[in-house]
């Protein structure tokens, strides 16, 4: 969270949820503007350059999806996180097709929301063409799709490699289980078992066993991040 405070547009009509959102985003270094209805959201979205916007589906005057569609029509590409109490199955598809960039189903943990907002904010900032990713003494070769630590190659299954690559690309930032499922397995539903944790556990054994310091860290109840120290 470097540089000036980034601005974020929160479109939410429930006062309690809106207050919680604005507060927790402010704590994380965002300047959050609140829009409580569709008209407000459209005028703010058009006039200000936001890093990210979160849009509730069910607003009193308009469907959140229509706000995103209208802004996209005006050429505004601010990454949008759709928040909805509706089920994921078909609404997710509709939401993403309308120009939403990510989808979060109520109820959600604020840590999950923050992780996703962070990921969306980063996405607009970093598009770097590299062939090797490094974190500490871990090297990922993006061409041969292999990993080594201190020059010693680590045997990974293809899916394990993708998981590691996603964690490394988000170095220093927490990624949630749902985000892993979404980006590594291309799935869009909430995991109801701890199977992801077990899978990450196996990857962690391959990466961190008998090393000077651990790379993969757990944030209890939220997800994981990769960092070279601490």
């Amino acid at each position, binding site marked *: 969270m470097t540089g000036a405070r980034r601005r974020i547009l929160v479109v939410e009509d429930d006062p309690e949820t809106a207050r919680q959102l604005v507060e927790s985003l402010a704590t994380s270094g965002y300047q959050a503007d609140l829009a409580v209805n569709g008209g407000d959201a*459209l005028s703010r979205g058009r006039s200000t350059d936001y890093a990210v916007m979160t849009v509730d589906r069910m607003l009193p005057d*308009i*469907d959140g*999806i*229509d706000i995103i*569609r*209208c802004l996209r*029509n005006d050429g505004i590409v601010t990454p949008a996180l759709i928040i909805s109490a509706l*089920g*994921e*199955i*078909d609404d997710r*598809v*509709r939401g993403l*097709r*309308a120009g939403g960039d990510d989808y979060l*189903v109520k*109820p959600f943990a604020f840590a999950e929301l923050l992780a996703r907002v962070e990921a969306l904010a980063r996405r607009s900032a970093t598009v770097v063409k590299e062939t090797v990713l490094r974190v500490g003494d871990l090297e990922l070769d993006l061409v041969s799709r292999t990993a080594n630590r201190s020059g010693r190659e680590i045997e990974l*299954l293809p*899916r394990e490699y993708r998981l590691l690559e996603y964690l490394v690309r988000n170095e220093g930032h927490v990624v949630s289980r749902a985000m892993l499922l979404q980006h590594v*397995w*291309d*799935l*869009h*539903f*909430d995991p*109801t*078992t*701890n*199977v*992801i944790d*077990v*899978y990450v*556990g*196996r990857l962690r054994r391959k990466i961190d066993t008998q090393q000077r310091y651990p790379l993969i860290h757990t944030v209890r*109840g939220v997800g994981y991040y990769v960092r070279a120290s601490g």
Partner: protein
Amino acid sequence: MLLAKTLRSSTLKLALACIGIFGAVVFALFGYVYWATVSHVRSRADHAVAAEYSVLQAAFDAAGRRGLIASIEQHIAEQRLADGYYLLADPSFAPVAGNIEVWPSELSGPRGSQDVGVQERNAESQTPVLLRTKFDTLPDGYRLLVGTDIGHLSQFAGKMEAALAGGILLLLVLAGFATTAVTRRTVGRIEAINATSRAIMHDGLGRRIPVRGTRDEWDQLAENLNLMLDRIEALMGEVKQVTDNVAHDLRTPLTRLRGRLEKASHQEFDPERSRALVADTMRELDVVLTIFSSLLRISRIEGLNSRGTFSVVDLAQVAGEVAELFDAAAEAKGRRVKFESGGRVRVIGDRDLLFDAISNLIDNAVTHGGGNVQVTVRDDDQGPTVSVADRGPGIPLEERKHVLKRFYRIERSRSSPGHGLGLSLVAAVVQLHRARLEMEDNGPGLKIWLQFQPVITEGSLSVAPEASGTRC
């Protein structure tokens, strides 16, 4: 009330229209008979009169006026023409011979053929006789009239009119009775259905429409409606069952939570303990939310009828990924999830839902089963299948049909984690894909497999267009 309904009934209107058409047909039929009979009688009278006239004409030609008069007298005496009337008048219309009192004033022309009323000579009654006549002027200036009584024709017409009136009256009375009976019966049957509908709206789904056992279309309608009501009642029962289960499964953890918080509110504040309390509470709440979202997800899948998100999916790839994902979990228990397939197996479906369904099957096998879990994907004549087999205790035969129900948990697994919703979700996904779910004994263990419909068309299915409009 029934009378008012009868009057408004469409059956009554239909019956009245029928009576109208039928009455018009009867009227036309009577009219035709009347017209045909009258013209027949007239034409026969004309023939008879014409023949008689030529006989008399011949007598005049042969023997002159004297012979004609004699012939007339003779014809009257012998009644050569039934109901025959004759009159010979001089040029000043004074009668000379015949059985008619005076020359009818209507017949002033030299010749003609006309219906006319005349007075019979020396008759007791003063009523005129209606004649069909032929008259002509003879060469000597005298006029000869021959006629026949057609009074019976007007009697016949009167009888016809009476018959017509009587027939119409009878028709109206009978049709009136029939209409009333049919309409009352129809209105009665419909009223029975309406009454049942109202009773159902007031008192619930217990009522049924009475069936009379006549096997007619009314009975069939009633039976079909009753079957529909049975189905609705069954569905409502299921919904109630689920609601009760939801209430139970959500209330239990919520009550536990409430109790814990209530107890904490009475205790001295202790940072360590309250941190633990908050952590526990959030964990329990997560369980409740998980159950809730699983239920929503199942209802959602069951309610999906558009397969807008369907495309061609490689079943082998999806099952392989799930197997690999769960292999890590099985490994932690010292077991393995093994995967086998003969290459790409295409099905038309939703990748997320298939992943979720197969996840639940493998998760069950790893959590509740035993030994290694074998996941196999095949594509044979009957279509693509994915099977998940374990070496655990299996599911008793009598419990197999229940395990797909929501919240159902077989007795021995109640202590292990789970909410009894996994297989319900699988069942919902299977139904959406028009697939089949089968269970069999793996001796020991359980083998459960999903049989999909074969893919017929190439390429991916088109995606339904976006329906909602944009308001900016």
